[in-house]
């Protein structure tokens, strides 16, 4: 019964219930933790903890009836277990206090757990007939022995176990921190290496740039010298020039042809593989799985299959084989002949060029040349090559080659530098700790699959039933998420966790591309604790790693912690 101080307090003593608060040897009522003991000192009056204006007789403490709107008069029973945002409450659950926000003032029933450590058990578990040893090893939560429940005190045994575990955990945490430091050192070293590389490359580039400049000058020099000689030099005939151009072009086309065929073959293999999948699918699907999409897929497949698809034309392939052979005297064009041809009737030669080519090549060229070149150019795979290589002396050519080579290595070095710099820009987490884990793979068996997580690389699902491997995502970024945990007092609290996000994995049948969110927890080893499919093709993994354990950065911090992290 609740009465405001000013109201009928007298009535309380008149109506005093026969139940007296149980005191088990100590001065605290049952279920009260030391930190709340001060509220229960008065021998006559108890003021509800969160609403001290509301007072009840001390006899109402633990009388198995909920008087206080914050439940504080029942620290040792389940009578106020309904005081929660999770309960449907009516006005009569808080007589005269309609406007109060109902939250329990106490975290739970306090189990002393002598021989172990004290703990709170949720009020809803007090006297429910179940020994909740996880919280209450002394069995004190079942003091009423409802239905004959007896919970023996198991604190000695459980405490020992717990201490052993705790000891192990502590050790493990120490080890984890050590490992993290190693990781940090490793990461720092790797980062340092890259930074050193950057310096080295910068220097190299400078050197290359100077060389290039010098070589350009050289080339100019040689060209000038040559120009003076050129007057008397024999000018190559147009046919010879054309032959050279043609040779280059044919070479290029041949390479393209080979490449394209290779791709075609790969694609055919893929089509075959897909056809195999689909025909197996057609055999194995539930003819009435009631999925419209599936049915449509099957009938489309049947139509497709009915059309009959040949594996290609063998004769044509033989032609292509022929074309693909390098030119020499026996096959293809005898370029040497053309390069040395006297320049008598150039136009004629151009018109009759085809006569010197094998017929298969001619038709292939006729069919494909324009289209293909256009395609390549349009897509930027081939630059529009200007035909300007006239006749040049060996000296000029050498100079040019040297310049080219140098330019090339300058380009390559620049590229390397760019890569390194980009890498330094990547977020590898605090103190770049994940740099040390990049590419490290861990696996876990779960049901019919083995799951694999390669740090900052990808996640995979490998079927144990022989269904092959499925990519569950490629690394995208380091992020964070909040998860809900129960704290020591039984409240749900949110905790921030580092995540590794993997996206754009293989696409699901009729669904999205797979993705995985890896939630990291501090642990001694890199280990996948749990994998779950939160929704279709969206996975989450809980992974332990020393990399996210707290601390370690300060003392043994990597040489340089990036400012922006």
């Amino acid at each position, binding site marked *: 019964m609740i009465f405001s101080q000013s109201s009928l307090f007298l009535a309380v003593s008149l*109506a005093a*219930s026969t139940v007296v608060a149980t005191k088990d040897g100590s001065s605290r009522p049952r279920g009260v933790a030391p930190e709340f003991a001060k509220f229960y000192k008065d021998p006559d009056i108890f003021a509800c903890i969160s609403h001290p204006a509301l007072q009840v007789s001390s006899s109402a403490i633990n009388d198995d009836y909920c008087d206080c709107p914050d439940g504080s008069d029942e620290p040792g029973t389940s009578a106020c277990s309904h005081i929660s945002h999770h309960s449907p409450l009516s006005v009569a659950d808080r007589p005269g206090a309609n406007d109060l926000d109902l939250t329990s003032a106490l975290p739970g029933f306090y189990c002393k757990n002598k021989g172990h450590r004290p703990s709170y058990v949720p009020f809803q578990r007090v006297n429910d*007939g179940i020994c909740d040893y996880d919280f209450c090893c002394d069995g004190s939560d079942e003091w009423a022995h409802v239905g004959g429940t007896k919970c023996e005190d198991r604190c000695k045994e459980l405490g020992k176990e717990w201490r052993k575990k705790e000891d192990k955990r502590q050790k493990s945490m120490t080890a984890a921190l050590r490992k993290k430091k190693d990781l940090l050192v490793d990461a720092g070293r790797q980062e340092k290496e890259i930074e050193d590389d950057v310096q080295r490359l910068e220097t190299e580039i400078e050197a290359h740039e100077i060389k290039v400049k010098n070589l350009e000058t050289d080339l100019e020099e040689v060209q000038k010298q040559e120009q003076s000689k050129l007057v008397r030099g024999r000018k190559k005939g147009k046919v010879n020039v054309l032959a050279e151009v043609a040779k280059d072009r044919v070479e290029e086309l041949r390479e393209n042809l080979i490449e394209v065929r290779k791709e075609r073959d790969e694609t055919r293999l893929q089509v075959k593989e897909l056809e195999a999948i689909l025909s197996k699918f057609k055999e194995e699907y539930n003819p009435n799985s009631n999925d419209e999409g599936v049915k449509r897929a099957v009938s489309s497949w049947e139509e497709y299959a009915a059309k009959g698809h040949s594996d290609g034309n063998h004769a044509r392939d033989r032609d292509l084989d022929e074309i693909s052979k390098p030119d020499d005297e026996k096959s293809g064009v005898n370029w040497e002949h053309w390069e040395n041809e006297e320049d008598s009737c150039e136009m004629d030669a151009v018109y009759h060029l085809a006569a010197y080519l094998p017929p298969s090549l001619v038709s292939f060229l006729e069919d494909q040349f324009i289209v293909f070149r256009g395609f390549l150019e349009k897509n930027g795979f081939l630059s529009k090559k200007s035909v300007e290589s006239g006749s040049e002396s060996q000296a000029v050519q050498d100079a040019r080659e040297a310049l080219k080579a140098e330019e090339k290595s300058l380009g390559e070095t620049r590229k390397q530098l760019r890569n390194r710099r980009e890498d330094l820009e990547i977020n590898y987490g605090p103190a770049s700790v994940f740099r040390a884990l990049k590419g490290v793979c861990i696996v876990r068996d779960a049901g019919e699959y083995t799951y694999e997580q390669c740090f900052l690389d990808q996640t995979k699902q490998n079927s144990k039933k022989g269904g092959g491997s499925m990519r569950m995502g490629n690394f995208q970024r380091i992020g964070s998420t909040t998860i809900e945990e129960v704290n020591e007092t039984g409240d749900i609290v949110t905790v921030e966790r580092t995540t590794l996000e993997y996206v754009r994995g293989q696409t699901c049948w009729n669904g999205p591309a797979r993705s995985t969110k890896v939630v990291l927890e501090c642990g001694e080893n890199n280990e996948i604790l749990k994998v779950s499919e939160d929704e279709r093709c969206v996975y989450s993994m809980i992974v332990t790693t020393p990399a996210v354990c707290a601390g370690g950065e300060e003392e043994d911090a990597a040489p340089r912690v990036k400012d922006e992290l």
Partner: protein
Amino acid sequence: MARSWPVSVRWTLLLLVVILGWLVIPGVAVKRESFKYCSQSGFCKRNRAYADEVSAKGSSWSSPYELEPSTIQFKDSQLHGIIVKTTSENEKVRLPLTVSFLESGAARVVIDEEKRLKGEIDIRHNSQIRKERYNEAEKWAVVGGLDLSKSATLNANTEEGLTKVLYGPGSSFQAIIRHAPFDVEFQRDGETHVQFNKQGYLNMEHWRPKLEPEEDSPEDQSTWWEETFDGNTDSKPRGPESLGLDISFPGYSHVFGIPEHADSLSLRETRGGSGNHEDPYRLYNSDIFEYELNSPMTLYGAIPLMQAHRKDSTVGVFWLNAAETWIDIVKSSSSANPLSLGVGSKTTTHSHWISEAGQLDVFVFLGPSPRDISKIYGELTGYTQLPQQFAIAYHQCRWNYVTDEDVKEVDAQFDKYQIPYDVIWLDVDYTDDRKYFTWDPMTFPNPISMEEQLDDSERKLVVLIDPHIKNEDGYFVSEKMKKQGFAVKNKDGNIYDGHCWPGASNWIDCFNPEAAKWWSTLYRYDKFKGSSPNVFIWNDMNEPSVFDGPEVTMPKDNIHWGNWEHRDIHNVNGVTLLNSTFKALTSRKKGENRRPFILTRSYYAGAQRVAAMWTGDNQATWDHLAITLPMVLNNGISGFPFAGADVGGFFHNPGPELLTRWYQTGIWYPFFRAHAHIETRRREPYLISRPHRDYISQALRLRYQLLPAWYTAFHEASVNGTPIVRPQFYVHPTDEQGFALDDQLYFGSTGLLTKPVVSEGANSADIYISDDEKYYDYFDYTVYQGAKKRHIIPAPIEKVPLLMQGGHVLPRKDRPRRSSGLMKWDPYTLVITLDKNGEADGTLYVDDGESYEYQRGAYIHRSFHFQDSVLSSHDIGTKGSKTAEYLKTMSHVKVEKVIVVDPPKEWQDKVSVTIIEDGVTTGTTASMQYVSQPAGKASYAVVKKPDVAIGKTWRIEF
């Protein structure tokens, strides 16, 4: 040319686009073309055509069925005779008639076909099937109530051409049988309530040999001998054999029942017109994918019980036939037929029943109240079994919890968030390759440890076992079933092969007693390894669903044990499996004395004795949420109240508002289970973010708080057949305005009235109140009063619109626990709302919630009564051998709180009450507090700890 790689990527993409193009899913909806309309079902079309022809001819037409007066015999409350049908070829077909008058007050009319009874027919295709019309539906559906009346007599006061039989209570009923043309009128107190063949649609398609039709034959024989639908051909070895009958309810404008349809409670007309259906209501148990709403289409279950209701009168008919059945409904203004005018009624409802095969077998119930129909129908087909306590708590299901560890994790999460649940479910994928009675060794390597964890908080596991058995060598169930001949056979007598979840499958034939017996043994703990006593069963797909069969079920010419065609027995097929499973669950281990729990999707009249049902594969939409109310209500008044719908919607993802509202609605389903399709996001309540999680928890805890009342309502259903949640007409049978209401409900006999919010963005509910009692808001005691009008109740997202009718004592248990099993020892709270006369009544039934000990008296059954400021508790149970022992174990379970809503003003200064326990002369006192509330809200008084034992007789004097 390294640069060429992007080309290959592009090509691959292009190819993928092409392939994916095939896979585009169109908007999901029922594949309507896979299921028949009446016009595609030969016998339905023929009978409808017959009705049209009869109607067109009007008075110039006379039914060709005549009861031969010389054959009429009346003996021991049974009337026998021969109806002679004269065919267009002037052939005389003899149809034996039996009308039985039962002690219960029901009448039963059976018409059979003499030639077929005597076996004087030939069956085509050398088929081995039976010659009789199917007459064993009774065997599966009916368990009692067939005792013949001791007092039915022929009424001597009769006219030429009529036979009149007086029967029923005080001979207040009369059946008037007209000989030529044959028709029957059923009267109560001299007024006709039910008529057979008044419209002349009676049609028994007699057996005939197949002859080459004559050129000018007037009859369309195209559907007589063979029918093809959706690529499947029915060989129809017995030719046409359908039966049709019109049943009229003069003066009745509402008919209810004949589940299962996703439609309104008050059935619509089916012959077209605005707001009406074009097709008859169909009963042909089917696995319908993403079913249509507001449709007469058949669904998974069938109960051919129809009740007609008008002011102050309810009557009903039960059409006992297991074959495919269609029911047309037409309502007509009765002014055309002044003779059948009821007092104040203007409309007559005509129903036309059409079945494909079997004998004609109809029960007629003359009411006069909805409760009478529940009771009498329950006597016949059995009452809902009293379920275990856990079965009426909250069930958490998903297709699929993927590993045993997953199950443990979900279990732990509920506790972490302190959200109660009782049962977790495993859908098909727990099995090894979809072989029932096995576990996937990789995903469920340790089922026992999982079950033990659940048992730690008295929770249960339900696993799916379906009747299709994977056809695989080495699978012990398949091998034994095939070897013993326990499988359903095809028309040629070979084992029938079809496709279902496991791929190629065969079906157990539980019509075969030996097969049923064997099936029962499979569930034994030593057979179904990995199962333990807290494992229960879900029988799904028992329509039966056959993925490659006609209309997703078996061919009608399949053959079951006893040489009945599948056509004959289709609608009871599911029940045969349930019976066997029920038996199995009572014999898993010798000496085990626990009540089974089975969930079924397919059902027929009688299934309520052994199982709970749910409305199948619904969708996460507001429309689907809304339709669950009429569907659950309709099942309730049709004798199968243990009904529910998938909370959250099976297909698709509900948003937080829809999910919250669905939980707030779902807590009013007698069977309360959340379920979700494999492709949906996980949506266990603890995964929903606040504040919706809080609202869902509050709804769940409200269900748990009211479990004592739920259990009491289930007990009432188990002895009286009363629905557990009741529509307006059932509670207020005199208020015509409420007859069609199907979006609000009363919970048991508690007076709790709720109108769940089933539309998006709603902030209030308009609850219709029929009577002039005061109604109090459940949470803040706001008063609503005013008969025959709607009252606006605030219903923001956190609120369940729930009212308490004045005049009730409501038992609750207010302490939240992890599961219902752990509430066993908790004290009760009694909430009293006084009626106009300052009185209130309530009942409470309690037992151990799991065993059959209650049959030996181990239960508490109390009646609470409040009058003249005294609340008293009376024993209304019957003592048995176990009563005393049980009461002793319950002696510590007490009443912790009594709340009186809207008490007399004089109580204002009262601070205590006197308590007098039975056998004690001096009373004790308990404190009481009177709390006034602002205007519009009722004041209330709270008694603290009266401490009276729930099982004892006592009085509390205010």
